[in-house]
């Protein structure tokens, strides 16, 4: 039967067993009489080391540890969406039903509801040859998402029999598969997959379409591709979580996996509450219908925090395999790195930089590489985009987690304390941020928004860069002494910063802005710039230009033009032309 071992030592979440137990690396184990969940992390001839995903208070040497024979895995099947799990895929609402308001130890619950009957449509026939990834059944999981159950990636063969369409639970067999060697396997709606192993895919595609988020500074200035990776680093209070919430709400992904890794409990409650009320603008159903939450708050056991990131990305890959675009919000990867550090410290490993283990970089790269726009084994296309928040200590981007993350992501949205203090949100700084996807995505913008889009975007960035070098001078001698053309650059840069980059997440129109409006706003601002520049070139002083309220008018376009009345932009362009004529007429 199952292999067992005897506890020898306990140090926080780390447990030592004496002797060669025959356990396997990464195998899931049950620890002690309370059957706490743990994982094998180190083996040698004399000791087996286990990290325990639950609080170890009350555990005593001499208690038995039982091996399960499986690596730490998640159950993949219908019921994942519209649900909230802890770091090892235990549904928190089930835990609450069993043990009340607190999370107690050794609660044994099924990851997914095994009693619920799903309306199943079987898509394979007896005699059909199938391979890993072939879709065997379709289930309407939520009103927004059809769940496609698949043959596990490591199986292939011939379908021997199937059940009729009808209502089945995730544990009932749907089809029987005969492999080449003659063994027969029952296929069910759900399957298991170890969290630390990426689910295989056929091939990777280069980035080709952006993940449209409705956030101007992201979509226009620093876009992330579908299947891309981005990092949001920032000190506390700079708005990492707000940015992640905004993307989770408005991004044009089919599925959102939100991982609250070592963060605040109230924040997860807020996501749960808010997403259960807000509607997805594209499908009209609730945001929760396309969302799964993984909550391992900062006071929950540290080893499960380490696992939560992998649990999240495995769920995402599973939905990718069905042909969906999935976006992962990981908030925050620094807490995950700290969990690694804490466990590494308990294992008395040799620390590298700032106490972090030397394998920090390889773990981070392995995680971010699980993103991508893929051709799946079953021929469908899907993507996993990873957006990871980073919480650098003291807001200092030179610390190891930020630096190592920077090496493996292609999009960097640096949050700035100064902007956050001035309540300029999103506080993403336009000078420190970058996106390597811009070149890849240029054709998309050209075909789907406007051929002028990338050019306009570059002009905007150029103005902001000029502003920043002018500000160096202004800081020394004041803005009054600048020539008028430079004063104009400062004025237009202000319009861009306040009227375009700044975005109010609590304003019904401004919280999510369609691509078309972003482009028109950009065009209007640049039109104003061109016209004003002509005036200045003709010798009109800035003081005269500023008498006209046109600059304020353009700044508040974001509030004044509703997202579905883009024809109003014509009026603005007319107003700018009129302003041009007026100034000339008055001061000819």
């Amino acid at each position, binding site marked *: 039967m199952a292999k067992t071992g005897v506890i020898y030592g*306990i140090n926080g979440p780390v447990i030592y067993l004496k002797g060669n137990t025959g356990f396997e690396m990464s195998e899931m184990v049950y620890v002690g009489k309370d059957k706490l969940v743990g994982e094998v992390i180190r083996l040698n001839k004399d000791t087996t080391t286990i990290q325990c995903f639950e609080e170890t*208070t*009350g555990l005593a*040497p001499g208690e038995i540890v039982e091996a399960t024979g499986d690596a730490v895995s998640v159950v993949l099947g219908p019921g994942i969406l519209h649900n909230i799990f802890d770091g090892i895929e235990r549904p928190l609402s089930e835990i609450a039903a069993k043990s009340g308001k607190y999370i107690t130890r050794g609660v044994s619950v099924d990851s997914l509801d095994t009693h619920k009957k799903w309306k199943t449509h079987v898509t394979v026939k007896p005699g059909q040859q199938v391979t890993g990834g072939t879709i065997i059944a379709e289930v309407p999981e939520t009103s927004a998402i059809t769940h496609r159950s698949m043959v596990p990636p490591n199986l292939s063969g011939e379908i021997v029999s199937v059940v009729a369409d009808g209502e089945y639970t995730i544990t009932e067999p749907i089809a029987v598969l005969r492999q080449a060697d003659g063994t027969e396997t029952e296929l069910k709606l759900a399957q298991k997959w170890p969290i630390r192993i990426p689910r295989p895919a056929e091939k990777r595609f280069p980035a080709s379409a952006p993940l449209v988020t409705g956030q101007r500074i992201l979509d226009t200035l620093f876009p992330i591709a579908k299947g891309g990776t981005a990092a949001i680093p920032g000190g506390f*209070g700079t708005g990492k979580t707000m940015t992640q919430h905004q993307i989770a709400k408005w991004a044009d992904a089919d599925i959102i996996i939100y991982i609250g890794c070592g963060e605040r409990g109230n924040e997860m409650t807020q996501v749960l509450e808010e997403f259960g009320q807000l509607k997805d603008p594209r499908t009209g159903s609730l945001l929760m219908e396309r969302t799964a939450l993984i909550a391992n708050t900062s006071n929950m056991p*540290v080893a499960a925090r380490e696992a939560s990131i992998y649990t999240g990305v495995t769920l995402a890959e599973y939905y990718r395999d069905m042909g969906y675009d999935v976006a992962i919000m990981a908030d925050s990867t620094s807490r995950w790195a700290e969990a690694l*550090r*804490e466990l590494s410290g308990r294992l008395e490993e040799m620390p590298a930089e700032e106490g*972090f283990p030397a394998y920090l970089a390889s773990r981070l790269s392995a995680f971010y590489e699980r993103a991508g726009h893929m051709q799946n084994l079953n021929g469908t296309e899907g993507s996993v985009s990873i957006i990871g928040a980073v919480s650098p200590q003291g807001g200092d981007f030179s610390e190891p987690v930020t630096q190592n993350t920077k090496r493996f992501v292609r999009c960097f949205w640096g949050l700035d304390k100064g902007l956050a203090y001035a309540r300029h949100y999103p506080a993403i700084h336009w000078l420190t941020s970058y996106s390597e996807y811009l070149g890849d995505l240029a054709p998309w913008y050209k075909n789907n928004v406007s051929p002028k889009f990338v050019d306009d975007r570059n002009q905007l960035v150029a103005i902001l860069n000029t502003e920043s070098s002018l500000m160096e001078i202004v800081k020394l001698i004041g803005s009054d002494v600048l020539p008028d053309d430079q004063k104009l650059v400062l004025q237009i840069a202000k319009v861009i910063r306040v009227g375009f980059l700044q975005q109010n997440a609590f304003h019904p129109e401004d919280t999510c802005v369609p691509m078309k409006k972003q482009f028109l706003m950009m065009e209007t601002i640049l039109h104003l710039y061109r016209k004003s520049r002509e005036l200045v070139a003709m010798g009109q002083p800035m003081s005269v230009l500023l008498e006209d309220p046109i600059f304020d008018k353009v700044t*508040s376009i974001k509030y004044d033009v509703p997202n579905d009345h883009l024809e109003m932009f014509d009026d603005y362009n007319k107003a700018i032309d009129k302003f041009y004529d007026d100034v000339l007429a008055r001061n000819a």
Partner: protein
Amino acid sequence: MSIEYLGLSEINGPLVVLEGVRNAFSEEIVEFTVNGSEKKLGRIIALYEDKAIIQVFEGTDNMSLVNTHTQLTGHPMEVALSPDILGRTFNGIGQPIDGLGNIPSDIRRNINGLPLNPVAREYPRNFIQTGISAIDGLTTLIRGQKLPIFSGDGLPHNQLAAQIVRQASLGDGSNEKFAIVFAAMGVKYDVAEYFRRTFEESGASDHVVMFLNLANDPVVERLITPKVALTAAEYLAFECHMHILVIMTDITSFAEAMREVSSSKGEIPSRKGYPGYLYSELATLYERAGIVQGVEGSVTQIPILTMPNDDITHPIPDLTGYITEGQIVLDRSLNGQAIYPPINVLPSLSRLMKDGIGEGYTREDHQDVANQLFSCYAKVGDARALASVIGEDELSPIDKKYLKFGERFEHEFVGQGQSENRTIQQTLNLGWELLGMLPKEELDRVDTKILDKYYQPAEEKKE
């Protein structure tokens, strides 16, 4: 009676090692008898087969390898609770020190608590009026929030906390039950005495539970004090259905104690010698604030921490800021200008504010006013920097207006009396009055409709 073990095999700082132990478990509490008379308590922090590493709360003075008898108690650290704890004073490990005897109660709770299930939490939305403009207007305190005060030595954080206690508790006059749990970790006698007197003067002392670990009390006790206090707070909130405000001072001493113990355990340090689990440990304290669905009662925390060398990037304030829902930062230069409370509003923040203010909670214009004040005050800083280079006279007219605005904002909006209790209406109106000093086109954070409704230029008013 359980087995008594004679002698110890090692003593190292606050830690002792006992060998040959049977049936001990992780986190179990042990009782020491030193020289046959003196009693001490300890906690098992690590176990290796029959060897237990034990942390001694009262310190290892007088203990030797031979004169100590050890007994296992068979339970983790627990504290006895009953509604009678209100009005009482305890030491850092929950033993009464006010001479009124023990708490007779069958209710005993493990002080380590358990993580609150996010599903069972209720998102906090109820605004607490503290009567302090800088807090109510700009970093609003919400019931169930954890909002620390980041301070420095010599700054009036205690006065501020005391004022919050006075004004928030007496504020609405509703019939909800309200109590204060006060946990002192390594603070000076004077500080503890100041709070005791404040509670007394405000007539709240029979609604206060005090846990005192003073500066000269054993260091290891400090690791227990906030946990005992929060266990009491959770009991009063979720079982006696009261609204609890927990004041914890000083978190820095707590973290230092952790570092001391960690280093004597020989653990690998991470930043500035603090153990790698500092974040998790702080989180287990702060995350115990909150509201539970369907249960009357709440735990609101105001931890106070003194930033070593006023450095907000020091690991203690830094990690705290990542866990708590905002922070109130005190500033030495404002204090130098005799502005009370010296709250530097720019780095201060309340994360729960956005959902607990506005129409139906405070007033429709609250968020916009707050944003605008922040944005304008940030510009004041730029104008001042410029003025210090080119002189005030050379500034543009608009920059001069900002300088004046900044001056009045600091003295009139942030600054107020120690017993001055402003309503939220007064605070917001004062905000508009100050914004009236600036031209309308500078107010770019306010929705056009709100601006038209509330904005009044300063000149117009004089007429």
